[in-house]
C-alpha cells in the first residue's frame, strides 16, 4: 500500500471550489462556476475511485481490513486528556461512502449545468453544492466523534442554504427553517450523547472506541441514571441525533417539505448523502452499540421498521412526484436502520450490518437516478403533479427507460442491484426478529406498488394535451441518468460481503431461496396491482380512495403530523413556555437593569439637593459635622 496522503485532497478540492465560486463566481460568466465545480468534483471522484481500488483490491486482506489514518492533527487542546483532533480515517465504510458521495455529487454537478441553466443564482448554487460535498466528505472521514459532529453541523447548514435556495419563496424559506430546526433539535441529543460517551470512556477517537476487546468501557458498568445504564443513554441520544438527520419517525417532518429545494439538491442531499449520515453514524458506532447498549440497538431496529411502514403507507396516496420519492426515501432509510438494528457482530452474524451498507450504496444510485429523472420530467412539463402528466413515454425516451430501470430496481426485481441488497436485509431480519421481518416484507410489496403507480401515471395513463410539447432533456442531463442506471444495474454484483462487514473480515454468503422467492413474488404482486389500476386511465383508484374514506384522508394528509407539531409549538410551547420566559426577560431581567438605573437616578436627584446653594444649609452641615466629629473623637476614641 502506498501512502494514502492524497486522500486529504478529496475533501479539500470541493472546499477550494466553494471558496473560489463563492467569492469570485459573480465576476465570471455563470457557466465558468458550473464547470469549475464539476471539474473539481470529477477530480475528487477519480481520487476516491483510486483510493477504493487501492484499499479494497490492492494487497492482502485475509485477516481483515485495517483502519488507516493517513493524516491527523491536533486542533484544540483543552487539557491533557481532552483533545479534539482533525484527521482522515480510512476503513471499509468510509471508503465506500467516499465513492458514493463523490459519484452522486459528480453526477448532480453535471446534471445541474443543464437543469439550473438560466437561473439567477447559478454560481451560488454551485458554491453551495461544493460546500455541501466538502462537509459530507469531512463527516465520513472523521477520525473522532467530535470532528464528525462539527461536520454534521456544517452539513446541516449547507442543507439549509440549499433547501432555501429560492429564498424569495416563503414556502422554501419555511421548509429550510424547519429542516434546520428539527435536525438541530436532534443534534442536541447527539451532543449530550457525545458528552456522556466521552465522559465514560475519556476519549473521542473512533479507533479506540471501536477496537475489539477494548477495556475503556469498564467504568461504564457502574453508572446509571433513572435505572438505565449510562451507555444506553449515551447511545440512544446519539441515535436520536442520527434519527434527526435520517428523518426517522417522529423527526421525519422536515424531509417532505425539503422538496422545496431544486431537484438536483433533492437528489444529492435528500436521497443519497445527507440523510444517510444518520445510518452512517450508527454503523460507525456499531461495536459500541452492539456490545455496550443492546437496548439501544433494539430501539434502532424498531424505529427503523416503523418508519419504513409509516412512510410507505403515506407514499401510496401522494400526488406530487417529489413527495412520493421523499417518502420512498424515508421508507428505504427505515430499511437501513432496521438492518443495523437486527445485526450481530462478526462473520455471518454481521449480515445485517453488511446488508445495511450494501443497501445504502445501491439506494444512493437508484434514488439519485429517480430524483434526477423526476427533475427531467418536471423540467419538461413544468409541474410537479402527477395529474398534470401522462403518456410521457412518447416524448422522453431516455428518461423513460432510465426511470423504468430505477423503479424495477427499487421494487426488487431479480438481477438488478436493489434485489440483492433488499434481500440481504430480509434474511438478516428473519434470523433475528420475525416481527420486523414481517413488516419489511409488507413494505417491500407497498414499495413496488407505489413506485409503479408513479411510473404508470407519468409515462402511461391518459394522453394529455400539453401546452408545449415536452421534449427530451439535453445531453448534459441525460448522461448522468444513463450512468446512474448503469450503476443501478451492476452495483449489485460487487462482492460486498467480502469488503464491508462489521468486523472488517470478509465472509461468504449465498442466496437464501426461502426468502428470495416470496419477496420476488410480492414485488410482482405490487407491480401487477399498479398495472391494473394505473396503466390505462380508469376510475377504479378514485372509487377505492372513496371507499377507504377517513383512512384515505388521514394518509393523504400524512397522518396530520405536521399539524400536531405546529399545534404543539404554537399553542403549547409558544404560549406556555416562550411567553412566560419572554415576560420574565422583559420585566425581571431588563426590569432589574432599568431599576438599577432608575434607583441611581432618583438617589442622585435627592443627593443633588444637598447642593442647595443655601448658605444656612451649608452652615448647618458644617456645625453639625464638627459636633459629630468632636463627639466621636472625645467619647469613642479616648
Amino acid at each position, binding site marked *: 500500500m502506498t501512502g494514502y496522503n492524497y486522500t486529504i485532497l478529496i475533501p479539500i478540492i470541493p472546499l477550494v471550489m466553494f471558496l473560489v465560486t463563492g467569492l469570485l463566481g459573480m465576476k465570471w460568466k455563470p457557466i465558468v462556476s458550473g464547470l469549475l465545480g464539476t471539474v473539481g468534483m470529477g477530480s475528487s471522484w477519480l481520487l476516491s475511485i483510486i483510493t477504493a481500488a487501492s484499499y479494497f483490491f490492492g494487497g492482502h486482506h485475509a485477516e481483515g481490513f485495517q483502519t488507516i489514518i493517513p493524516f491527523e492533527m491536533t486542533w484544540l487542546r483543552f487539557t491533557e486528556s481532552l483533545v479534539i483532533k482533525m484527521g482522515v480515517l480510512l476503513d471499509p465504510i468510509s471508503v465506500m461512502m467516499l465513492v458514493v458521495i463523490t459519484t452522486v455529487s459528480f453526477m448532480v454537478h453535471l446534471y445541474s449545468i443543464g437543469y439550473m441553466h438560466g437561473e439567477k443564482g447559478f454560481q451560488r448554487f454551485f458554491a453551495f453544492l461544493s460546500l455541501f460535498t466538502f462537509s459530507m466528505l469531512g463527516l465520513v472521514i472523521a477520525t473522532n466523534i467530535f470532528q464528525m459532529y462539527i461536520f454534521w453541523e456544517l452539513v446541516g447548514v449547507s442543507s439549509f442554504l440549499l433547501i432555501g435556495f429560492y429564498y424569495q419563496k416563503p414556502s422554501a424559506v419555511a421548509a429550510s427553517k424547519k429542516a434546520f430546526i428539527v435536525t438541530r433539535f436532534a443534534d442536541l441529543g447527539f451532543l449530550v450523547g457525545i458528552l456522556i460517551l466521552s465522559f465514560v470512556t475519556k476519549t473521542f477517537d473512533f479507533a479506540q472506541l471501536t477496537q475489539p476487546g477494548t477495556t475503556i468501557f469498564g467504568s461504564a458498568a457502574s453508572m446509571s441514571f433513572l435505572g438505565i445504564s449510562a451507555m444506553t443513554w449515551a447511545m440512544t441520544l446519539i441515535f436520536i441525533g442520527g434519527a434527526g438527520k435520517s428523518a426517522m419517525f417522529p423527526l421525519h417532518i422536515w424531509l417532505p417539505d425539503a422538496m422545496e429545494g431544486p431537484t438536483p439538491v433533492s437528489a444529492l442531499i435528500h436521497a443519497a448523502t445527507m440523510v444517510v449520515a444518520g445510518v452512517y453514524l450508527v454503523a460507525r458506532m456499531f461495536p459500541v452499540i452492539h456490545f455496550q447498549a443492546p437496548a439501544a440497538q433494539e430501539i434502532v431496529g424498531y424505529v427503523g421498521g416503523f418508519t419504513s411502514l409509516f412512510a410507505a403507507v403515506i407514499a401510496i396516496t401522494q400526488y406530487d412526484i417529489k413527495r412520493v420519492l421523499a417518502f420512498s426515501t424515508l421508507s428505504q432509510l427505515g430499511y437501513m436502520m432496521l438492518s443495523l438494528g437486527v445485526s450481530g457482530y462478526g462473520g455471518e452474524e454481521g449480515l445485517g450490518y453488511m446488508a445495511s451498507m450494501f443497501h445504502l450504496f445501491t439506494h444512493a444510485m437508484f434514488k439519485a437516478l429517480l430524483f434526477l429523472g423526476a427533475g427531467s420530467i418536471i423540467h419538461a412539463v413544468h409541474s410537479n403533479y402527477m395529474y398534470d402528466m401522462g403518456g410521457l413515454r412518447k416524448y422522453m425516451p431516455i428518461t423513460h427507460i432510465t426511470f423504468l430501470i430505477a423503479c424495477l430496481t427499487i421494487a426488487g426485481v431479480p438481477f438488478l442491484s436493489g434485489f440483492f441488497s433488499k434481500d440481504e436485509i430480509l434474511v438478516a431480519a428473519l434470523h433475528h426478529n420475525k416481527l420486523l421481518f414481517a413488516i419489511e416484507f409488507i413494505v417491500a410489496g407497498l414499495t413496488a406498488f407505489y413506485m409503479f403507480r408513479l411510473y404508470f401515471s407519468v409515462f402511461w395513463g391518459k394522453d394529455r394535451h400539453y401546452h408545449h410539447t415536452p421534449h427530451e432533456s439535453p445531453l448534459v442531463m441525460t448522461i448522468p441518468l444513463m450512468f446512474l442506471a448503469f450503476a443501478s444495474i451492476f452495483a449489485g454484483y460487487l462482492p460486498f460481503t467480502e469488503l464491508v462487514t462489521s468486523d472488517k473480515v470478509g465472509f461468504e454468503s449465498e442466496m437464501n431461496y426461502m426468502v428470495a422467492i416470496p419477496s420476488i413474488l410480492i414485488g410482482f404482486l405490487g407491480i401487477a396491482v399498479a398495472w391494473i389500476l394505473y396503466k390505462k386511465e380508469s376510475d377504479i383508484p378514485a372509487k377505492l380512495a372513496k371507499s377507504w374514506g377517513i383512512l384515505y384522508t388521514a394518509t393523504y394528509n400524512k397522518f396530520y403530523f405536521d399539524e400536531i407539531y405546529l399545534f404543539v409549538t404554537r399553542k403549547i410551547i409558544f404560549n406556555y413556555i416562550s411567553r412566560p420566559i419572554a415576560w420574565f426577560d422583559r420585566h425581571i431581567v431588563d426590569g432589574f437593569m432599568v431599576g438599577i438605573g432608575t434607583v441611581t437616578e432618583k438617589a442622585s436627584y435627592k443627593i443633588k439637593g444637598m447642593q442647595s446653594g443655601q448658605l*444656612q444649609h451649608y452652615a*448647618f452641615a458644617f*456645625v*453639625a459635622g464638627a*459636633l459629630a466629629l*468632636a*463627639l466621636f473623637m*472625645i467619647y469613642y476614641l479616648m
Partner: protein
Amino acid sequence: MNVFMFYLFSGIILICSLLTITTRRILRAAVYLLCVLLSTAGLYFMLNYQFMAAVQLTLYAGGIVVLIIFSILLTHHITHRFKHPDLVKLIMGVGTGVIGIGLVLATIFSNSFQPASVQELPVDMTVIGTQLLSTEKNGYVLPFELISILLLAAMIAAIVIAKKEKNKNTEI
C-alpha cells in the same frame, strides 16, 4: 459684690443675645446686639483688662454696630417685620444649638481646671505697647503688621465692592 456683678452682666448677655436672634424688628436686633457688646465690655472690666474693654467699646459698640445700623437704614424698610422662620430651619438651628451646648458643657465639666497660682502680671498700657512691638519672646509685632495689611485690604475691598458708578461710598 463681684459675684453679683458677674451674674448681672452674664444675665444681660444671655437674654439680649437671645432677643437678638428672635426679635422680628431689625432695629431692635441691632440695639440688643449693642447691649450684649456693652455687657461684654463690663465683663472685661471685671477681669482687670481695661485696655481690652476699651477696645471692645470703641470698635465693637462704636464702630461695628454703627456700621450695621447704617446698612440697615440703607437697605431696609425699618417698619418691616420679619416672618417666622420655617420649621425645618428652626429644628436644624435649635437642634444644633442644644446638642452643641450639651456636648461642650459636658466636656467642660468633665475636666477640672486648676487655676494657676503664679503671680499675675499687671496689665497696663506700657506693657501692652512694648509687647505689641517687641520681637523677642511674647512679642507680637508680626501679627500686628499682618493685621494692618489685612485692614488695608479690607478697606480697599469694601470700597471696590460697594462702589456705585459715579458716586463714591466711603465706609470705614
